[in-house]
């Protein structure tokens, strides 16, 4: 469904992404792990079309993509960002926020679709005519997810979707994402620095450092700690150290 080959991105002197390649099969959720500055979000933004200066190959659903994306691309691919405070228009109601993608794509019966999208992300009907600042952080992230899904995309790009949320809200949003993914057979890429979150949602994982993929492993190998690269081993050790305290 998604094919990235030899992706290279430079910002001036900063060589942010260096020859990254991976494939994501339909219905799969692929995890990109790494620390800030590792290039993981940059890869995601290049796929989304938010970064235009890149070289290499990006293909979605068999279609090789250029720098500019057409409307059909955004019908297929949508993105959810880390910070729901920053990614929702502060002066638009939830209803307005959700109708915008439908207008852009000329989708009819907006009214029923919006009602269904709100129901799907378990937001109360009363939330529809509220402004973002009148909602809690978790509710806002649900609105962002509803906005991404309202025009029925097939690919969802998730950039740290739960790291600005409390752990109890994180659990709800992770369950929601798992349900939606199953119900709509979505293909996803999840970028996160939290190994436990990545292991929870992803079957295949790539670990990035300094703009490169340094290791690739599946969920079972990640959970079992069967990592070869020292950076992956470090990340696993840290994650376990914190987890051991709680159990």
């Amino acid at each position, binding site marked *: 469904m998604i094919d990235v080959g030899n992706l290279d991105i430079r910002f001036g002197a900063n060589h942010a992404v260096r020859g990254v390649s991976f494939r994501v099969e339909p219905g799969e959720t692929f995890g990109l792990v790494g*620390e*800030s500055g590792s290039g993981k979000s940059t890869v995601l933004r290049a796929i989304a079309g938010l970064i235009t200066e890149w070289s290499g190959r990006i293909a979605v659903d068999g279609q090789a993509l250029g720098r500019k994306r057409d409307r059909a691309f955004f019908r297929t691919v949508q993105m959810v960002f880390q910070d729901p405070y920053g990614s929702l228009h502060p002066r638009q109601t939830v209803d307005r926020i959700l109708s915008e993608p439908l207008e852009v794509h000329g989708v009819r019966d907006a009214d029923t679709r919006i009602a269904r999208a709100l129901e799907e992300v378990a937001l109360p009907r009363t939330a529809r005519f509220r402004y973002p600042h009148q909602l809690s*952080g978790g509710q806002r992230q649900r609105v962002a997810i509803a906005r991404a899904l309202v025009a029925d995309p097939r690919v969802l790009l998730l950039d740290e979707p739960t790291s600005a949320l*409390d*752990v*109890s*809200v*994180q*659990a*709800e949003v*992770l*369950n929601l994402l*798992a349900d939606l993914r199953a119900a709509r057979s979505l293909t996803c890429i999840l970028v996160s*620095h*939290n*190994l*436990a*979150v990545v*292991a*929870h949602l992803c079957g295949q994982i790539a670990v990035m450092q300094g703009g490169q993929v340094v290791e690739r492993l599946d*969920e079972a190998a*990640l*959970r079992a700690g069967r990592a070869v690269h020292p950076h992956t081993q*470090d*990340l*696993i050790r*840290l*994650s*376990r*150290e*914190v*987890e051991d*305290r*709680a*159990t």
Partner: protein
Amino acid sequence: MSGPSLESEPLVAVRNLHVEFPSATGVTHAVRGVSFAIGREKLGIVGESGSGKSVTGRALMRLLPGSARMRADVLRFGTTDILQAGEREMRALRGGRIGLVLQDPKYSLNPVMTAGAQIAEALRAHKRLGRREARDAALALLESVRIRDPRRVHDAYPHELSGGMGQRVMIAMMLAPDPELLIADEPTSALDASVQAEILSLIEEQVDRRGMALMLISHDLPLVARFCDRVAVMYAGQVMEELPAADLHQARHAYTRGLLECLPSLSERRDRLPTLKRDPAWLAPRA
């Protein structure tokens, strides 16, 4: 530096603290009868956003907005009664005897001053030092927070530093006047996992070496438990449970258990995460 009058007295004593924020739509009761004490030890205050944990920390420094109403049976730091102290005494406390490290060094450091100048300013605000001495002391502090190249960082502006480096500068600045208590409010939430561990072990090391007390405020229960002696769990302005960090896995309160159980795990696969069922009984005023 006057410590508490009796060695047996804790450094910080808080009994029945209430903080309210009146607004046009009603009164928000952010802290409702919180009590705790801190000796020369590390206390973690854990809770979700809106639980009142940060407001509790700010109340200790009387750093609340002017509209806030604060009352307590006891609110004491050393021999200072925080409810009665004059502004002059509070100024000596804030940044002097009590240091405060906040979440994001990007916002808490002055963007138009070099790191070294900010540390020197903190030093000279609370100690009599000449410029030269302040500069040497600032360099020594930067070295003590494990900055490899203190001279470079001394002359750098905040935007030239990474998040982890900025947080080290912030810690150096707060350690400058030799505080007795360090309040760290989500000091690592803006940082990566590995930098997070480095910063917390740095705070731990400095607190132990200087014999300070630490109040670590965070939403991350397992992380706090790893670095503190005791943990107080807050919900809706009240302390639900206080327990030794080592006994966290034996936590009794349903809220604490719920917070631990809803975490995804790396070692163990779970198809669905248990979500927190908020019991209305948790909101009832506690004795």
